[in-house]
């Protein structure tokens, strides 16, 4: 029985956007010229490949279904009214592909590629004597990045964190960009009362400490619903759709609290652009205001949007870690780099330290943020006709 979370829709949207772009660059025109420029940039192409890997993993992790529950004799179990009982756990395609990694757990910490546990235990030898030593692992040498406190594979947790990171980055941006462009450009272009109202809104919003807003919001919306673990029947609408996802609410509130910066930048840029001679020339042709905004203003502020997006993307992934730390981020059952970094706090203060949890989160975050930055730069340069190589 397939299950679709509201955050899955965000991932699907991202994938559709990429497919749309892929078709758009095939056609003649603006985007295809830009694409030819990006293709000459090797570093950008490598970055794009890595980004696709991440997004691919996120997509695999967003296709999920619930299995039927079988009784001890292997028969499908039914409810009293005759309907099939499904498991409350919706495993994703990724979970199923990495089945071994998911289920092969150890007892507790083990170092990367170790054969023995990281913690001494009292072991009873076959001859009956008891010694304190590092017990052997159940699956020695298979945990590429070791295991965590409860014995789960760290590499698996880090891979599970990819979807969370992508969803936070994309979902929040989807909310930020339309708001910021709409309000920023309107405020800058029309000025006067419109400007006053919009400025009033975002000044008020940004004068409230955003952590407070996020805490309040998450306590109201985030406590019920899907937390990343089991799905209760009440949460499911139309048999497959789960709208009430904690991660989704997190994206919403982070979007609401962080559109103001971009909005302010865009307002300033629009104030400058609306006095440009080419805008005046368009007005002299009687071009309508909406068309001026669409043709002359928005294309010329897109570089700011793109830079802010790339910079904010990494900031958002980090913000998720901080929020998880104070217990209002993603649920503890949902794999995320933020959660991993949190647990690493205690692991780094024990002796001997456990470093691989933090290391894994760091490598995976770095591997997403750096290519995103490089690729974002390349896209911005390619979209700017002034920087284009003739």
């Amino acid at each position, binding site marked *: 029985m397939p299950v679709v979370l509201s955050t899955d829709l965000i991932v699907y949207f991202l994938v559709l956007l990429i497919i749309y772009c892929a078709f758009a660059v095939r056609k003649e025109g603006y985007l295809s010229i830009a694409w030819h420029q990006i293709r000459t940039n090797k570093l950008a192409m490598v970055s794009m490949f890595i980004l696709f890997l991440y997004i691919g993993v996120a997509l695999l992790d967003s296709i999920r279904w619930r299995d039927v529950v079988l009784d001890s004799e292997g028969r499908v179990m039914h409810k009293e009214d005759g309907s099939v009982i499904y498991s409350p756990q919706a495993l994703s395609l990724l979970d199923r592909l990495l089945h071994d990694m998911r289920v092969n757990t150890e007892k507790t910490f083990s170092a990367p590629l170790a054969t023995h546990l990281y913690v001494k235990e009292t072991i009873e030898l076959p001859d009956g004597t008891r010694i304190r030593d590092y017990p052997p692992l159940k699956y020695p040498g298979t945990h590429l990045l070791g295991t965590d406190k409860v014995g789960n594979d760290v590499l698996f947790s880090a891979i599970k964190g990819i979807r969370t990171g992508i969803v936070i980055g994309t979902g929040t941006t989807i909310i930020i960009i339309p708001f910021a462009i709409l309000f920023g450009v309107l405020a800058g272009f029309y000025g006067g009362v419109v400007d006053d109202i919009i400025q009033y809104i975002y000044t008020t919003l940004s004068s409230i400490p955003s952590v407070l807003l996020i805490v309040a919001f998450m306590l109201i919306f985030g406590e019920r619903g899907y937390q990343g673990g089991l799905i209760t029947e009440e949460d499911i609408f139309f048999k497959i759709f789960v709208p009430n996802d904690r991660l989704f609410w997190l994206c919403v509130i982070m979007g609401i609290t962080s559109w103001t910066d971009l909005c302010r930048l865009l307002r300033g840029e629009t104030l400058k652009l609306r006095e440009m*001679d*080419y805008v005046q*020339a368009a007005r002299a*042709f*009687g071009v309508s205001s909406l068309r001026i905004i669409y*043709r*002359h203003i928005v294309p*010329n502020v897109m570089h700011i949007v793109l830079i802010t997006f790339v910079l904010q993307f990494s900031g958002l992934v980090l913000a998720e870690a901080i929020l998880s730390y104070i217990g209002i981020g993603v649920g503890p059952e949902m794999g995320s780099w933020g959660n991993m970094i949190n647990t690493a706090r205690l692991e780094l203060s024990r002796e001997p330290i456990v470093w691989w949890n933090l290391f894994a989160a760091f490598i995976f975050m770095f591997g997403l943020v750096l290519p995103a930055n490089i690729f974002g730069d390349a896209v911005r340069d390619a979209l700017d*006709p002034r920087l284009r190589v003739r």
Partner: protein
Amino acid sequence: MPEPVIEVRDLRTYFRTPGGIARAVDGVSFSINEGETFSLVGESGCGKSVTALSVIQLVPVPAGFIAGGEVLLRGRDIVHLSELEKRRIRGNKISMIFQEPMTSLNPVFTIGNQIIETIRLHQKKSTREAKTIAIEMLRRVGLPEPESMYYEYPHRLSGGQRQRVMIAIALACRPDLLIADEPTTALDVTIQKQILSLIRDLKREMRTAVLLITHNLALVYRNAERVGVMYAGKIVEMAPTRILFRNPMHPYTVKLMHSIPGMDKRGKPLDTIKGTVPPATMFPEGCRFSGRCPVEMEGCSRAEPPLIEYERDHLVACHLYDRGFMDRPVSRPITTGGESAPMRWTPSVKEEILLEVKGLRCYYPIRKGLFKRIVGYVKAVDGVDLTIKKGSILALVGESGCGKTTTGKAILRLIEPKGGRIVFKGRDITSLSEGELKPYRACMQIIFQDPYSSLNPRMMVGEIIEEGLKTLRPEMDRKERQEKVLSVMERVGLSGDMLKRYPHEFSGGQRQRIGIARALAVDPEFIVCDEAVSALDVSVQAQILNLLKSIQKDSGISFLFITHDLSVVEYIADEVCVMYKGKIVERGGVEKIFSSPEDEYTRTLLEAVPRID
């Protein structure tokens, strides 16, 4: 022969660019004596500013470097000095004034602070002594109340006053050489005259050598003793000013002088130079002017002409003056054929009135306080009357801030006027709504000053020119629009294959042509040219002026020519309105205004314009 203060020998300053090595300055030699003004003149990109920066050892690193040559300051080479020693020279022995007085002073320090900074850096003086010198300098550059001026911040001063402060800073240590890089380009013509005469007086008094960098030939004529004309990184001609202007020898110099507009050239097309200045990364082989030269010979593109002393003190780098070259068969002239015979045109001004502006007022509100109450108005335009006849060119002249641009934009209803009437072809358009105004939009168009900000960098040329048609002629289909775009591009001298290119791929002159094509596309009857040629080099300006003039003649379009450049006005306009502080102080035919101005202000303005006679 006195010893020169500064001697530059075979200076080469190159820049590393993605397109290869740019030879911005490529073998320049000159010297300046004590109390002498030497001027380097040329069009943008010829290397004159880079020469100045090389002399003061401020070539932007790491891209730029001095590839060879010597700069001798009183006989001592300063190119190879250590950075520390160079710092002791800058501001002390050689100092510099820049073009933009608005940005060359630090806004958070007082004037006095900025002057004594230089003094204390180079001389062992106490703050008290330095202050005395600073106040004395402020007095000498003619600033009122130097004692209180000492404590003022830069924003309280006007552009001209700031440039005086810059001069005070530059001369505070009594340098041997003063470099003035376009010192008055950003200033009004009346202020320009004051600043230049100030530099002249101080130079005479302090025996300073002056290197004056400018693109304005008339200004050179009035202010320099000797001139070097630069083209493509080289000095092509060098002579004492009077001799150069009386007898220009290099074809480039000759062309340059002929392309300056003026009263004597009225009714004739201006002389232009074909093509554009080659980029510094790909100068042509042989003579750098080859390919553009009207008297080019077969050997010109093969051998580079040396700078030879043809007459006493008159140096020129052209094969025409090289007897050895002229005797050989390579001196066969190439028939260029590109230049058409000069045509004369007679003004086709009709008496019919196209546009009448009555009592136009544009006020900008001054708002104060929490609720932004309007406490007063800046009266940018305060009761302007204009009448433009069909097919004529009316020039609106005045200094910056006098309200001339506001007037132009208000006539097109790009700025809402506060009062007055604009009557276009008998219909009052002052209070029409945007929708009712639409049919008139096609009739009235505008061309802007800055060819860089007037075109949307993200639109292709074809789209830019098409934009007006799309809005104003919705009945046209794509093919008709395309044809129209191609026809106006041809009209302004752009080729059709430029349709799919972006504005940044064009030079300033070409971009201005695109702007003109955009306006012409909707078949207007009236065009406002807002400083349309002010940002262009003189040879490009000549091309654009010729184009505008021929458009006026062919299609009977009327122009409102807003400018501060009086030489353009006397060349192109039929009538002139002189504007001062939001009001028109004098109006009349060009000949009348320029020969017998009646208003006090007009007279001041005309006297301030540097002229070549």
